Structure formats: structure tokens, C-alpha cells
């Protein structure tokens, strides 16, 4: 079982623990991740905001590399995933801007390889069963809420999601390793994205609201699959501090992936008491 892997720029900086825990979980379950050679930035939220062609062109180059490698490509960061999927959709629709990009980069997109988010991977046959079978340190009913935010699910014509207002894939994964996933109504609300940098007070309004709702639901932690969601929720919450975990960190903790103590040190709200 082998996938190409697109880590994204934050994998080596603010989302270091996302990258480490993703690699650890895949290794523990016997999957091989092969990093795309010489991958580039997906454009973040800035490229499509400023220029449509650049917004499609940057992720298209990564698709060209993925096609050359000939394997489905895993894109764990929700923001990167959404950009890559939008570029794929434009290439497959024969969009005139996408054609120009293909000509410039000298490739033709042939639909040969798929683009997977962590949700898509978790839904592959056998993955949830493998998680259940791999548990070494069951989480003993740790109460979590799953937070999907925007880019993993919307728009559904791009992400291919069948359920975009109430997705349940992350919950199934959390439950598979012994956590208790609580129901709540805010799992696809937005964290404010780049407002975290340009308008921290506004991001704080959004994120403090989300964290308060998570606490009301009875959660001991929020589980996410996006570097920007994690950074915003971890940094921009008020009050006593609710840990915000990458889903791969939660899974990795239950699977007993080595080195996880180092992941907890990267968080502003320390999640380590949850795993003692």
C-alpha cells in the first residue's frame, strides 16, 4: 500500500507535528508515503484571491508531478487539498485557463491519479478496521469533537463529499481507537482562515466561539485535519485552554507511535495531560 505524499509548506514549520504524526500513523499501519519530488506551494488562500491563473497553476504543477509518479496523492492539509482539487476540477473541465497552464508546464492531465484527503483515506476499505486492530493504548473514552472547517468538505462538487453539513468520517476514526466523538453543530463552521494573521481580534471572535461550543458539548479536545484550523483554534482561543489535536496525533497516540511526546510540545495548549 503506497501513496504519493504532498506535505505542504506548513509541514516543516507551524504544522510540524501534523507531518510527523501523519508519517507515523501511516508507517504504523503498513502504508508507505512517498513525498512528491520537488513539490511547490499550493498557493494557500492568497493565489486564488489575487489571480485565478496563478491559483490554478501552482497546484497544477503538483498534479503534473503526481501524474508522473503514477500513484494517488495524499494531501493531509485541508487548504492544500482544496486548492489541488479545484485545479484538478478545472483541468478535467477543459477550462481555458487550465489549458494555458498545461501548455506552459508541458503536460496534459489524464485523470490517472486520485487526490486524497485524510477523510478519503480513512474511508478506504479496511482502514478503520486496521486502526481498531492497531490500538496499543486505547483512549478510554476521551471526549472529543471533530472539526472539519471549510476546505475538506466544501464545495462538494470539488471535494466529492456526499455529506458536507454533517460529515462523520473523523468521528468514526476517533471512535475506532477508543475515543468518544461527541455530536455538535459547529463542525463545518469557518475558523477565520487568514484573518488569524491580518485581523487577530476577528479570528479570536470566531475561534473563541467554536472552542466555547466544543466545551459546551463536553469535549476535552478538538480534533482537526488542517494546519490553519489548528493554528487558529490553538492560538486564538480565550479562557483556560482546550487542546486542539490533529486527527493523526490522536490516532498516533492510540497506536503508540514513537516520538509523540515531541508533538505535544509544539502546541500552545498542552494536550499531554490527556494521554497520561
Amino acid at each position, binding site marked *: 500500500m503506497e501513496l504519493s505524499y504532498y506535505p505542504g*509548506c*506548513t509541514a*516543516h*514549520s*507551524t504544522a*510540524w507535528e501534523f507531518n510527523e504524526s501523519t508519517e507515523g500513523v501511516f508507517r504504523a499501519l503498513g502504508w508507505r508515503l512517498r513525498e512528491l519530488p*520537488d*513539490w*511547490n*506551494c499550493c*498557493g*494557500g*488562500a*492568497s*493565489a*486564488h*484571491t*489575487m*489571480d*485565478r*491563473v*496563478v*491559483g490554478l*497553476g*501552482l497546484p*497544477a*504543477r503538483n498534479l503534473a508531478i503526481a501524474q508522473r509518479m503514477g500513484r494517488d496523492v495524499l494531501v493531509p492539509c485541508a487548504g492544500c487539498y482544496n486548492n489541488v482539487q479545484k485545479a484538478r476540477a478545472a483541468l478535467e473541465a477543459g477550462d481555458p485557463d487550465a489549458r*494555458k*497552464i498545461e501548455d*506552459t*508546464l508541458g503536460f496534459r492531465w489524464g485523470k490517472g491519479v486520485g487526490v486524497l484527503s485524510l477523510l478519503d483515506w480513512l474511508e478506504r476499505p479496511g482502514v478503520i478496521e486496521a486502526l481498531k486492530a492497531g490500538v496499543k493504548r486505547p483512549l478510554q473514552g476521551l471526549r472529543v469533537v471533530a472539526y472539519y*472547517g*471549510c476546505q475538506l468538505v*466544501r*464545495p*462538494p462538487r470539488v471535494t466529492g463529499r456526499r455529506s*458536507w453539513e454533517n460529515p462523520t468520517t473523523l468521528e468514526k476514526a476517533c471512535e475506532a481507537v477508543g475515543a468518544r466523538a461527541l455530536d455538535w453543530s459547529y463542525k*463545518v*463552521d*469557518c475558523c*477565520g*482562515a*487568514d*484573518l488569524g*494573521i*491580518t*485581523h*487577530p481580534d*476577528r479570528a479570536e471572535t*470566531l475561534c473563541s466561539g467554536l472552542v466555547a461550543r466544543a466545551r459546551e458539548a463536553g469535549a476535552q479536545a478538538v480534533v482537526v485535519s488542517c494546519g490553519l484550523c489548528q493554528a487558529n483554534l490553538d*492560538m486564538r482561543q480565550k479562557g483556560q485552554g482546550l487542546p486542539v489535536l490533529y486527527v493523526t496525533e490522536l490516532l498516533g497516540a492510540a497506536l503508540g507511535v514513537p516520538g509523540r511526546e515531541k508533538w505535544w*510540545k*509544539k502546541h*500552545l495548549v498542552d494536550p499531554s495531560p490527556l494521554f497520561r
Partner: protein
Amino acid sequence: MHPFATEVQELSGQNLSRCYQCKKCTAGCPTVSWYEWPNHGVVRMIQRGMRDALLGSKTIWMCVGCDTCGTRCPNGIYLGPIMDALRSLARREGRRVPEPAVLAFHEAFLASARRFGRVHEATMLAAYKLKTRDFLTDLGVGLKLFAKGKIPVLPKGIQGKAEIEKIFRLGS
């Protein structure tokens, strides 16, 4: 249809005449409280050709592209690509941007991606801070992240920088 509406439709690929003002877009928008007008009002303003008001507005820069409005629109109109189209028109016409921090961030981000092929946060954030001349906001958070080793000091560029440059030149 007003020529401005035709222009926005062509740029965004969205059919504005399907809007029947149900306000569902506005009801779900996380950032609408920082807009001058609600989402459904933006659609009507485009139909009425209110070019100057829209292209000089904060609204188009406060949308973060979460796609909640478009996903919930009963008529399948996506405001995200419409906001993208309005921003690129505003840039093309050299309009003053009333949300300078947002513009500074996007410019710093893209400059970093263009230069290295990947975004290098330390130099990108330094460029952003220089543009906004605001060095104190978030200094504490920034230092905490730095102390946690989350912001590498040295940038690492990719091999295919020439291709990245070609992509940026293809844009306007």
C-alpha cells in the same frame, strides 16, 4: 443585464440572474458582520452595476472564501469565485484597498511562493510586518511559536523555480 454584471459573470463563471434574494448565503456567512453589505446585497449591487462601491469596498477583502454561501445556495451560485473576480478587477484597476493588512498578507505570501517555490514563514511574516508597519500585534504569539521551533529561520527553495516563475508570468 448591466455590463458590469456581464463582466463579473464571465470572470467568475457564475449565473447571477438565478438569484432570488432568499438570503441563505448571508445567513451562513462567518464574516458578514465585517462587510458593508450582506452577501445577497452584493449580488444585487452587481446586477445594478454598482462598480465603484463594490470594487472599493472592505467586503471583497473580508471574504475568506469558506464557500459556505455557495454550497448552501439553492440556485447553485458561488459567491467565492464572484468575490475572487471582484478582487482581481479591483487590483487590475488599481483601486485603493481599504483592508491594507489583507492585501499586504497576500502580497507577502505570493512573493515568498514566487521566490522560493514554497512559502517560508519567517521571511514572509517579516515582509508582511514591514508592509503593515505594525510590529507589536502578535509579537508575543510569534515569539512563542519561534521558541517552540515552529518557524525555521532559513528558507529552502525548490529546483523548479523557473516553472513557478512561468506560472506567475502567465497570471495578470
